[in-house]
């Protein structure tokens, strides 16, 4: 079973590229699941699914299933699996738990990673394609399991809850520690108590959670990473961070999206209608900049980027996805 992780900065077209890769694999008879974190249901429209959900379901394409990440649902599953039932029930209604599941970027990234690992392990598909939450240019996805491991096994948790006896009464003793008295002054006592209660509960899931996080880290390390970018400076800078980043696997491919034809940079022919000549000139300037940025990136990183053209119609349907695949040689080879 193979995993492909499509990552990169926000707004570069990760979801579309992930859908195109999955479509091309399904077309070749590979049983494929595509999972997206995108909240705007764009993948749903691209796959002609009116209501895409948390559970993988078939698309109109034979051999292609799709689903969407529900970080909160994923966290509830995780906690029910790893914490004792009574604690799990308490955690599930804890406001900090909800905050970690939904708002903490690493929490969302961890849920996405956990889901990918679960799908890979299920053996239902030969290929699982996921796109990543945009936080930290996609790098959060790769560091999330380690950060969750640190959260549940970290010094803070051990200290607050007492290393050997995580008894509830401990909680009220620790206010005697001078450092924590200071913390109390700053944050207000009740807040700290609530946090400590939450951490105590989370600690019951520690062994299961950290073993699972390690498994996920191994799955991520074995997956194929595809970085999507445009030629604009900030997405490019985010893409650069995947090269030489210690905690993310080295990208197998870089996809440049919204590529303009370099030949547009040539001077318009004489006698061309002036309004069209002026238009070609401004787009030509853009095409030239793009081509410089692409070449510089390719040389610096020793990669041969896959180019996806800037299509007149934004790919929101299967027909457009097929056109995109057709006009982007290299995407189908991933």
């Amino acid at each position, binding site marked *: 079973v193979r995993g492909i992780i499509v990552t990169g*900065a*926000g*707004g*570069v077209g990760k979801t579309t590229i992930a859908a195109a890769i999955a479509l091309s694999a399904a077309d070749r008879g590979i049983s494929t699941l595509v999972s997206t974190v*995108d*909240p*705007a249901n*764009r993948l749903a429209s691209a796959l002609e699914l009116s209501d895409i959900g948390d559970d993988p379901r078939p698309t109109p394409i034979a051999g292609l299933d799709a689903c969407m990440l529900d970080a909160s649902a994923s966290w509830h599953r995780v906690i029910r699996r790893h914490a004792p039932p009574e604690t799990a029930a308490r955690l599930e209604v804890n406001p*900090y738990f909800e*905050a*970690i599941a939904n*708002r903490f970027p690493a929490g969302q990234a961890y849920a996405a990673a956990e889901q990918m690992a679960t799908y890979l392990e299920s053996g239902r598909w030969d290929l699982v394609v996921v796109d990543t939450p*945009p936080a930290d240019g996609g790098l959060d996805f790769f560091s999330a399991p380690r950060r969750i491991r640190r*959260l549940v096994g*970290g*010094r*803070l948790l051990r*200290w607050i809850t007492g290393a050997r006896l995580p008894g509830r009464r401990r909680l009220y003793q620790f206010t005697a520690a001078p*450092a*924590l008295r*200071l*913390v109390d*002054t*700053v*944050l*207000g006592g*009740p*807040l*700290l108590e609530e*946090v400590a209660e*939450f951490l105590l509960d989370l600690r019951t899931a520690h062994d299961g959670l950290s073993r699972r996080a390690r498994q996920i880290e191994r799955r991520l390390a074995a997956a194929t990473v595809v970085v999507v970018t445009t030629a604009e*400076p*900030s*997405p490019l*800078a985010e893409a650069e961070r995947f090269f030489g980043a210690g905690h993310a696997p080295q990208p197998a491919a870089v996809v440049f999206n919204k590529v*303009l*034809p370099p*030949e*547009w940079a*040539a001077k*318009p*022919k004489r006698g*061309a*209608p002036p*309004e*069209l*000549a002026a*238009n*070609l000139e*401004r*787009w*030509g*300037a*853009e095409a*030239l*900049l793009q081509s410089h*940025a692409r070449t510089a990136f390719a040389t610096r990183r020793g990669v041969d980027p896959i180019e996806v053209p*800037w299509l*007149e119609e*934004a790919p929101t349907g299967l027909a457009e996805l097929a056109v995109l695949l057709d006009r982007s040689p290299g995407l189908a080879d991933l």
Partner: protein
Amino acid sequence: VAAQRLVIVTGKGGTGRSAVSAALALRAAASGARTLAISMTVSPGLALHLGRTDLAYDEVEVSPGLFALSIDRRQALNEYVHRQLRLPRRAPLGAVASTLNGIADTVPGIRDAITIGKVVFESWSDRWDVIVADGPPTGQILSYLGAPSAIADLVPAGLVKRQAEAMREQLDDPSTEIVITTLAEELPVTETGQALADLMGAGFIATVVANRIVPELTFAGELRSGPLYDAARLHLSLRESQQRWRAELPDGPELPYLFGLHTPTEVAARLAEELTL
């Protein structure tokens, strides 16, 4: 020079949030206002648009009258603790700092409150006429703006509660403006609509800036093949789709697509010329 203003800029990733923040700050400084630009995230975007490779927690003057800083949440937390405990700014905190940082890492609301708190504290300083904050993405803006209220509700009494309430008042005050940057495309427009509704529900009013709008192209002739016509087709279809999505947005300023202009400082300078806010 305008009366004191606090502008918080949000927007989906890739919509030009940092560029617009930099442009607003450049424009304010050019009008003679003592201006502070604040990056609320670790992204180097604002720094690059102001011609620096990075920014630090202590402000630097990036151009005459324009200062900039980047909020490192650990340092913000430390500064807050020093202020609370009335310690000298550089006094070491030791174990207290690592405990607090651990808690701030665990409870998202605290990090958000400390970050927005630093912005509000700066807005109370009489050193600045205008403060422009390059804020979090639209998906997180409400948790930042709502953090002081959340803290005020959690803490029963005392200094922290009073401060949180004062912050809430500042954020609710008409001198605080929220700007959402967007592109005229499906995803950003959908997200902007959601953010506007959420913000309105929490009592905030925001201005929407539509970025990278391509100009009108009028051509009555036949579109044949070749680069001249291909570029025209792309432009016309982009223009049509942008206008369609733009109609879904509330009225607000519009910024042009800057063809062939990629240097962040050039982009910020050009946008500053175009922006009237």
